[in-house]
């Protein structure tokens, strides 16, 4: 009975994940695309939970579906109608080539996984109940993976400084604004 329940939730989450992924790519309005991406990230969090990554599922919802997507929605609101680049697709051979490239990539990944791993993928390791819990992840981050933790903090700091620099007005833009006002 438990197995069937897990499978049912898994299929639901995977279906929602793939469906909302397609929706992100196909919606014309970036606002709807961003909303679809929130659904995508939330259903991915369910898959993370089923793969016993509890802390990551929580971080996914908080950091991604929460903070990052709110930032996206703010920028889309700021751009207003200008964010709407219609789905022109360019010449038809470009779209056809894109579909062929994406399909080739998919087939390649599946074939490589099938050849390399075979049935080794069905033998999952036994894990303790605390696997993937915040306590475990935190302990590893402050012991074995301390360097990665520190580098991550530097990356975030650099990104924050970069965001501020990109956000400040340059002298050219001030002149552009003045020209726009006088015209």
């Amino acid at each position: 009975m438990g197995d069937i329940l897990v499978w049912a939730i898994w299929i639901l989450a995977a279906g929602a994940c793939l469906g909302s992924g397609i929706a992100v790519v196909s919606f014309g309005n970036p606002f709807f695309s961003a909303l679809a991406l929130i659904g995508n990230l939330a259903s991915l969090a369910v898959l993370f939970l089923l793969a016993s990554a509890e802390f990551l599922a929580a971080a996914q919802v908080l950091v991604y579906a929460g903070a990052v997507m709110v930032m996206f929605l703010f920028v889309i609101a700021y751009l207003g109608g200008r964010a709407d680049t219609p789905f022109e697709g360019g010449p038809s051979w470009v779209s056809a080539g894109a579909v062929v490239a994406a399909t080739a990539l998919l087939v390649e990944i599946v074939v490589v996984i099938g050849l390399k791993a075979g049935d080794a993928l069905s033998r999952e390791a036994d894990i303790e109940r605390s696997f993937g819990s915040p306590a475990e992840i935190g302990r590893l981050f402050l012991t074995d993976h301390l360097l990665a933790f520190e580098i991550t903090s530097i990356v975030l700091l650099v990104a924050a400084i970069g965001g501020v620099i990109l956000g400040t007005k340059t002298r050219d833009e001030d002149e552009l604004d003045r020209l726009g006002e006088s015209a």
Partner: protein
Amino acid sequence: MRGPDVSWYLIVSAILFSIGVLGVILRRSPLIVLLSLEIMLNAANLALISFARLHGDHDGQIFALAVMAVAASEVVVGLGLIVAVARRKLVLDVDRFRVLRG
């Protein structure tokens, strides 16, 4: 209680990654290109987490967290660039960005 094998997770992750690739190549709005990039990063995260489950080892999850942090920084810089482009009153279309000049 046993759910699906790791191979199922990997198949979902591969399909999701291909959807992201399709979005990056097909769409012309830089915002949607960024959103598709997020899909690709998350597909990679799903693969990392399912391999972590397979081996019963936390390293994959730690790596996925690092990917999340890098993705957040990428969004900050990418959105900053898009806003800067929009403020210069240029057309938001990736096909028209031909020169990177300050």
